[in-house]
């Protein structure tokens, strides 16, 4: 089975409910899209992430009401360095969509989505702990896996596998 080439043309993907809803709301918000291996990825501006999530959650036809996962990828040494990744699931229609927001390495800050989904609490703490990305508006942004006095963020690519010596 050969892999189908990825589709990156926004016009071809308009039918997907998540993208349709975002374009209807504000056509400038989806920066770029990719449909690869049956999964849709939408890049959005980091300033709009909370609003985008709220819009998709309350979408009338296909509400993406469930935050399946929230994580981060470090693209060190290229800039923008971090990509925060949101996996949303629509429980009524079983559609999935992946949102991404790019952050600079110098001051990785993004708005928290805990006000949209309280379940984002632990996920954002984990990303903060392991990547050092800060979430503004998070009720309790503390380390979750590592001890409170730990130095560094282990999942960053410049953090050695065996720890600092």
């Amino acid at each position, binding site marked *: 089975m050969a892999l189908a080439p990825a589709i990156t043309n926004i016009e071809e993907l308009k039918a997907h409910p998540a993208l349709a809803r975002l374009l209807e709301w504000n056509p400038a918000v989806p920066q770029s899209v990719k449909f690869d291996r049956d999964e849709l990825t939408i890049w959005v501006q980091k300033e709009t992430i909370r609003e985008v999530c709220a819009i998709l959650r309350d979408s009338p036809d296909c509400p993406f009401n469930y935050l399946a996962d929230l994580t981060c990828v470090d693209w060190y040494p290229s800039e923008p360095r971090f990509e925060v990744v949101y996996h949303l699931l629509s429980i009524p229609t079983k559609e999935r969509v992946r949102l991404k927001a790019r952050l600079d390495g110098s001051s990785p800050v993004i708005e928290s989505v805990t006000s949209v989904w309280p379940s984002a609490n632990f996920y954002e703490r984990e990303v903060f702990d392991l990547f050092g990305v800060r979430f503004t508006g998070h009720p309790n942004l503390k380390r979750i896996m590592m001890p409170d006095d730990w130095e560094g963020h282990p*999942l960053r690519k410049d953090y050695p596998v065996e720890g600092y010596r």
Partner: protein
Amino acid sequence: MTQFPTVVDDLGTGQSSERSIDRSVDSTMILNMGPQHPSTHGVLRLVLEIDGETIVRMKPEIGYLHTGIEKTCEAKFYQQVVPLTDRIDYLCPMTNNLAYCLAVEKLLGLEIPPKAQWMRVLMNELTRINSHLVWLGTHAMDLGAMTVFLYCFREREDVLRFFEMVSGQRMMTSYFRIGGLALEPPLGFFEKVKKFADRFPGNVDEYENLLTGNPIFMMRTKGVAHLSAEDAIAMGACGPTLRGSGIDIDLRRDAPYSGYENFNFKVPVRTEGDVFARYLCRVAELRESIAMVQQALAGMPEGPVKADAPKVVLPDREKMKTQMEALIYHFKIITEGFAVPAGEVYQAIESPRGEMGYYIVSDGTAKPYRVHMRGPSYANLQTLSKMCEGQLIADVVAAIGSIDVVLGDIDR
């Protein structure tokens, strides 16, 4: 009066982190439960703020079992990650193997032969039975019903023997490989599973006789640790916890993988949203799982158990000894791995505890750029505070049992 700083400065509910308790006035008390507490099923620490016996607030403290598996994955070849995935959720190793293998196969665009798919379904349902039996035994024991534990572990032993037959290991099986299975199932395996599957529904009746109508068990579970459907979605519950609150979702039916579309099964849903509802969901799942094992045995296709992809799948031992090419492929896979086309996938499957997702990013090399495991226990643990606030301390034990957490899955 002297002001003492609190043991916990914030219980995670957004209140001031500089709060201190004046113990002469304040009627609440901080109680520490765990990390070494038998009912927390691992090293989970709960910080409870209690007023008498009633819980005002609670905060789970995790991270005691953090081993950095996600970081380790980035330093391994794709095929070397499989044994690591067993160690995440050690009660359902095959489910983790499957989620990881499916994700990598999706990245590669690899087709899996039917027999391997059916074997994967068979082993996954046995894994679900194994996991639910441990849950049922320990949950009942937490609530004072000792007998059920012994009954459950008797049947679990049978399932572990099946694991040992196919993989040589009872718990850390690593039986699934990228591109299929590690080995053909041994002779006599299907007959033994068949015997077990014929007997098992009677065993489930035994457990239900001990628990379902038992007045003590009902009093400990009915109406306890209630979670509404809205809260369950907002707090990110999944699996039987979500289905116990009336949300009809099961990825095996809604987004079939590995040939699940060929199986007939019902998804048990309860609307009560309490501990008893989650108990009923899981017990009904035990019956559905064994019915699926029967279907898998009856319809098991013939054929190879590995995909025809010599650059990804290790060759048979016999071929390696007789064919030059097979030996070269073997050497190359072992020493330099295999390159996976750049891209990313999120593969979610239904584990015994709920949605288990593997998010893998590939940069085109032989090592994964990023592997993230979305653990169902991690998601379910967040609902615990919601369930327990306003309940009694004794009910916390029932609530922890009802969401069926595995700390290896939470901390990774």
